[in-house]
């Protein structure tokens, strides 16, 4: 209903009363009135001021497009050098070291650059984070929306949102000094012992840094995003759905599974993709725990690097224009990928939260 009225208002001719009131400014202009006040009374009522204000606001809104265009233009401009040198091969090529005959990807001294290890690191750490975070986030959302006693709901929701407010650098700092030693001393030996046969957990990195540490930190960081969006879409599921399933004799879990999660699944997928977008671009925490070596390893316990991490660590000490240009091209790739991922997530979430209430009536 408010939507309907909203469209009506601007079409009403409110210039008319404005024009009338401008005819009697003298009556209200007190002697102490300032220049601004006099201006407002004399000319503030004109259609010109109205139109000026309108266009100013439009300009502010358009600045958002401007920012996206600006970022894209600047990154395209400054990555020309690397683009002309490598083209699309930048994203899949590798080089062979003439001395040791080992495959390598990133050699600033000889100006040979390839994005492969960083794309690999970004993907591995992000998907690891999703793997750890999604079950927990959905679990928390289910608990908070469907099971939690009312008195606990507010504080617990606030606590999970606080996780989102902690700066990335503090996550990294904590991860480096608490999580990494914990993984190194207690978790990694067990993983190597139990799952060493898969080849995913090799005992070749004594530091504890690496993909797994980055994945765990990222999981903690994206948890609140996924869980708050999941909660949002779950609350958007109409109550009649829950009641209908309960009336058929379902237990609470069956009600949640059939009545709530099924209806909210598109939105939950949207939340997960949004979390993925955050994980792909996360910089500081990953930089501090991933180890920062441009290599590809199968083992999750090995050092690696990610797109954002290599930009953060090498940009200020880049050797030569080509190095700088290659780093900016990595940034451009990251920008485009996160734009696509976020747009997709946004569309999915909108599809659910917009349509849901309308379906009940």
């Amino acid at each position: 209903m408010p939507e309907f009225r909203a469209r009506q208002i601007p079409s009403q001719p409110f210039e008319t009363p404005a024009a009338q009131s401008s005819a009697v400014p003298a009556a209200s202009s007190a002697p102490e009135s300032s220049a601004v006040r006099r201006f407002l009374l004399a000319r503030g009522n004109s259609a010109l001021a109205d139109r000026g204000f309108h266009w100013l606001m439009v300009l502010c809104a358009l600045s958002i497009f401007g920012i996206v265009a600006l970022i894209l233009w600047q990154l395209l401009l400054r990555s020309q050098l690397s683009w002309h040198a490598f083209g699309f091969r930048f994203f899949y090529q590798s080089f062979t070291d003439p001395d040791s005959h080992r495959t390598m990807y990133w050699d600033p001294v000889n100006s040979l650059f390839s994005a492969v290890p960083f794309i690999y690191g970004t993907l591995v750490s992000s998907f690891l984070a999703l793997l750890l975070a999604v079950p927990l986030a959905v679990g928390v959302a289910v608990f908070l929306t469907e099971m939690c006693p009312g008195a606990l709901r507010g504080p617990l929701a606030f606590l999970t949102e606080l996780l989102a407010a902690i700066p990335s650098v503090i996550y990294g700092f904590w991860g480096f000094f608490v999580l990494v030693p914990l993984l190194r001393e207690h978790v990694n030996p067990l993983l190597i012992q139990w799952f060493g046969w898969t080849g995913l957990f090799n005992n070749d990195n004594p530091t504890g840094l690496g993909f797994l540490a980055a994945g765990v930190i990222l999981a903690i960081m994206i948890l609140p995003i996924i869980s708050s969006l999941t909660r949002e879409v779950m609350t958007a599921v109409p109550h009649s759905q829950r009641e209908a399933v309960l009336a058929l004799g379902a237990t609470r879990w069956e009600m949640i599974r059939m009545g709530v999660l099924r209806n909210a699944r598109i939105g939950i997928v949207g939340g997960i993709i949004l979390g993925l977008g955050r994980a792909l671009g996360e910089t500081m925490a990953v930089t501090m725990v991933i180890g920062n070596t441009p290599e590809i390893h199968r083992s999750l316990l090995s050092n690696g690097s990610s797109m954002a991490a290599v930009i953060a660590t090498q940009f200020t000490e880049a050797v030569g224009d080509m190095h700088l240009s290659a780093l900016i091209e990595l940034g451009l790739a990251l920008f485009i990928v996160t734009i696509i991922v976020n747009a997709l997530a946004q569309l999915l979430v909108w599809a659910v939260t917009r349509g849901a209430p309308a379906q009940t009536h």
Partner: protein
Amino acid sequence: MSTNHFPLRSRLRTLTDRAVTGLTILATVIVVAPLVAIFAYLVYKGASSLNLAFFTQIPKPVGVAGGGMANAILGSAILLAIASAIGVPIGIGGGIFLAEFGRGTRLANAVRFTADVLNGVPSIVMGLAIYALIVIPQKHFSALSGGVALGIMMIPTVCRTTEEMLMMVPHAVREAALGLGVPNWRSVLSITVKTASPGIITGCMLAFARVAGETAPLLFTALGNDFWSSNLNQPIAALPLQIYVYALSPYDDWHRLAWAGSLVLIVLIVLAVSLVRYVTSRGVLKGAS
């Protein structure tokens, strides 16, 4: 349930229900645990190194005990002031357009969508873009470029929360203002925006808290500085940046300073977020509608 023909099945279903309840509680505990762990560790490590010197002195050279992060605190304040000067007015303007002028139009939907997408763009990309835009032509790092990078990051958040808050203002208020012959722009500024101002301020604080902890966009714009600096054309220190540099240093003295800095930063951010939560849960706007 006297006529229960499937006792086993029924018990299995009840058991599954209980198990799932247990699992969700476990998930909640696992999620809250890192939060508690991080806070406890920060307080444990940071509180012991917090003293007056931390807030009044600049960092001492390696090996000299003591010193503080006063220059980083000042630097952060300057950067955030620049960021707010850019991000708040433009963000609020965009929000006003979305809620007051563009409701339901295709342009408004596109702006809203782009703002949400821009919100998810990695902060390091923002740093790169500002580096290319300001630092390369100027040929040196500067506080101004850092502030601009943070300001641009504030715009989408401020814009969307302003819109949401303005949407909550009832139409009767606008109609009353227009009916009295108030021009539209004044009705928007001194009636609608004023009614929604607690919510809008909250949104600004949320954006502020978010960029206050940002490090990545400052790495190659503000760069950091070990000395007092308030010159906008020079590299400037910032609290998150200093924490990053000190955390990765091999010196215990610097680690202690970094812990103290983290504690200060997180206390400020938690205070801001709690205030926001308090204001929004009090329903400042609910009374009006």
